């Protein structure tokens, strides 16, 4: 069993500075009399905002950063004391704790001039944003997104793109800035380019040994979340692609002796990222793909039809697509990336990513013969995490995978 751990990607280590710069950029925006918008993080209209000089911030990302920095406990207490149930989204509870006066890391999030919520992942998005808008006494703009039950249709696209166009009119009216069509076109091209580069980076993880692990991947998705539509993001992913390509050429992997290739579903437990190291060190198991990090790169944009294209991006995300789509998507990845097993992370406060994990587990097993394990904790709230219990469950799963691997054809 190899114990040798490679250093993380240098591009992944740069993320800390980029995160700091991102939160500072909102302060700067206000100094320059530009607006700050708090947006939901999956396919927000960042391209529109950046081309209008409005700085988006993403409370979900902030919650995740605060969790990694271990500064959430007090925030949870504050939001609970204000009547927010512990059953609710822990991202929301954490951020509400900061909004309600809790001591916030990185100097806190610059207050918004407007809040923009989509409904393409969960209803919690809408409800959380309503609560923030109510508490901060700032306007809220909602982009309603229908669930997709078979395919994305013309009527879905028209509905969402009309709302985006209306958002622009509203932003123009209240900020006094008009949207420059050329700038929007450019933002879409940059956003699409960054997503394409990210897909290429993720594609390189087909290599054996896999050149990028889950921790680096979870950090490196940040520019696509925060800066889609900027040159900065494109430059970042170009650099990342170069570094990962070099690793592949040199045959450098996350671990030298890669024994198991795993797929991760769900939001990482940000308070216990070392869980991934446990699997790596103890079992030589590497996560070679995550549905979560892939979510930010799955669409290409057509800059000649910006609103329709952005509408498509909003609708086309795994939590908004029908079960059959998700099932085939997963089965395709398992095949392409030569995956041995799937770890389905459930979060007790995130129904959108977790409620059907028990069924996915059964479908993968019965229909595709793919082994998986469902783990339950919370993505942000460390109080709902039981290290011993989770490791015991993973141990059992790895033992099963180990016994299966003996039966594998030798030429794999």
């Amino acid at each position: 069993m190899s114990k040798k751990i490679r250093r993380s990607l240098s591009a992944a280590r740069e993320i800390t500075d980029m995160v700091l710069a991102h939160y500072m950029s909102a302060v700067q925006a206000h100094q320059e009399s530009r607006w700050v918008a708090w947006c939901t993080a999956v396919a927000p209209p960042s391209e529109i905002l950046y081309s209008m000089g409005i700085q988006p911030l993403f409370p979900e990302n902030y919650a995740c950063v605060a969790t990694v920095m271990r500064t959430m406990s007090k925030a949870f207490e504050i939001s609970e004391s204000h009547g927010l149930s512990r059953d609710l989204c822990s991202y929301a509870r954490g951020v509400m704790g900061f909004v309600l006066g809790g001591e916030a890391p990185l100097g806190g999030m610059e207050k918004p001039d407007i809040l923009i919520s989509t409904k393409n992942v969960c209803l919690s998005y809408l409800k959380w944003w309503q609560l923030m808008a109510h508490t901060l006494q700032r306007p809220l703009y909602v982009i309603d997104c229908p669930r997709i039950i078979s395919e994305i249709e013309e009527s879905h696209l028209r509905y969402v793109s009309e709302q985006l166009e209306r958002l622009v009119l509203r932003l123009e009216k209240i900020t006094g800035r008009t949207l420059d069509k050329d700038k929007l076109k450019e933002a879409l091209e940059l956003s699409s380019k960054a997503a394409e580069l990210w897909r290429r980076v993720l594609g390189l993880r087909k290599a054996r040994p896999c050149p990028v692990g889950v921790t680096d991947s979870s950090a490196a998705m940040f520019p696509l979340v925060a800066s889609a539509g900027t040159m900065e993001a494109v430059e970042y992913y170009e650099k990342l692609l170069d570094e990962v390509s070099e690793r592949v050429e040199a045959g450098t992997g996350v671990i030298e002796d890669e024994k198991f290739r795993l797929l991760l579903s769900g939001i990482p437990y940000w308070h216990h990222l070392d869980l991934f190291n446990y699997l790596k060190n103890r079992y030589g198991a590497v996560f070679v793909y995550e549905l979560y990090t892939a979510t930010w790169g799955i669409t290409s944009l057509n800059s000649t039809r910006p609103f329709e294209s952005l509408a498509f991006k909003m609708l086309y995300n795994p939590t908004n697509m029908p079960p059959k789509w998700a099932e085939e998507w997963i089965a395709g990845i398992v095949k392409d990336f030569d995956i041995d097993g799937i770890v389905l992370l459930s979060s007790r406060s995130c129904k959108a990513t977790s409620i059907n994990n028990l069924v996915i587990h059964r479908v993968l097993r019965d229909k595709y013969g793919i082994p998986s394990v469902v783990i339950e904790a919370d993505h942000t709230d460390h109080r709902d995490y039981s290290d011993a219990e989770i490791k015991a469950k993973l141990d059992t799963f790895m033992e099963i995978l180990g016994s299966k691997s003996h039966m594998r054809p030798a030429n794999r």
Partner: protein
Amino acid sequence: MTANGAVDKFRELFETRDAIAAEWKNRGKKTIGCISIYTPEEVIYAAESLPVGILGGTKSFAKANVYLPSFSCSFICGFLEKLLENEYRYLDLVTLPSLCDSIWGFYSIWKQISSNPEIYLLHYPSKRSGEAIKYFTKEVEKFKNFLEKFTGKEISKKALEIAVDVYNENRRLLKRLYMLRKSESPPIFGFEALEVVLSSMTTPKTLHNELLKELLTDLAARQEYPEGEVRLLISGHILDNTDILRVVEGAGGLVVADDLDSGSRYFWSLVENTHNPIENVSQRYLNLPSPYGPNVKGRIKHLTDMIKEFNVEGVVFLTRRFCDPYLFDHPILEQVLKQLGVPFLHLEHAYPLAKASLRTRVEAFIEMLR
């Protein structure tokens, strides 16, 4: 606390709802499960089908928990349990508005484990803007077209107009019943009113209208009145049964009004006209005060109006564990009541109900208000 018999018929209708629906089906007609308050039932009625309000159970969720995690709400768990127990075998179809993540999750799960009954997902917008109204109207139109194929019955404009009349009549009658509760001595208990509303969600509407008229006559002649020490309003989601209200009223409260999916919100507003029935029906359903709209203002207005109109002395908030939309609204509603100086109690509950502890908390609350 004694019920005086006037609502016995409604209790019986509600308790025998499965048999009533099964009998309807035996007559060769379709029965369609739905979340009554957010599904345009008029369209189902116009297709000569019976809309049956689906509810969560309250017993064990042993079968449902094979598919649903521990953090699912009891409404979805109970409904799935009932489906898996084959207690809903009379349903030909289930129509679900896409209200929350639990419903979308349930839809995904059911699609993967069964096709009987079929589930039809209706998009319920979170906006009330022009494009949202247009979109929802199209959704309802699509649903109408689907139902025509599904039932083999053409849904004419005339049939829709009749359906609106029948439903509006039910709404007016229920509202008249509720208005009687404004009186200093309301003629019925809150749990009885709930039985009347719940039975409206599961009984053929024309029959329900007839019985409501009789009830209103009977109540006018009522001699004995329910006793309660404090006038309460119950605010929350859909109640699956009367257990909680019985606990509240058994502890000395008298529920005189509500802000419930299985209460006033189900019938308070009418379909205003029928120039374009699909559009008029759609607008009515989209404008309900609910936690699924663009903001909480609608809910606040309905709640505070009810408090004033019904001379309410205290509010009991009911939230289901893991029911996100209501739990998210809760801090805002609490704040509103604090500003108004209206005392409130928050009961977050799960099934099976911990009745003893609920009772203790309600008693303490009533003691405080006395």
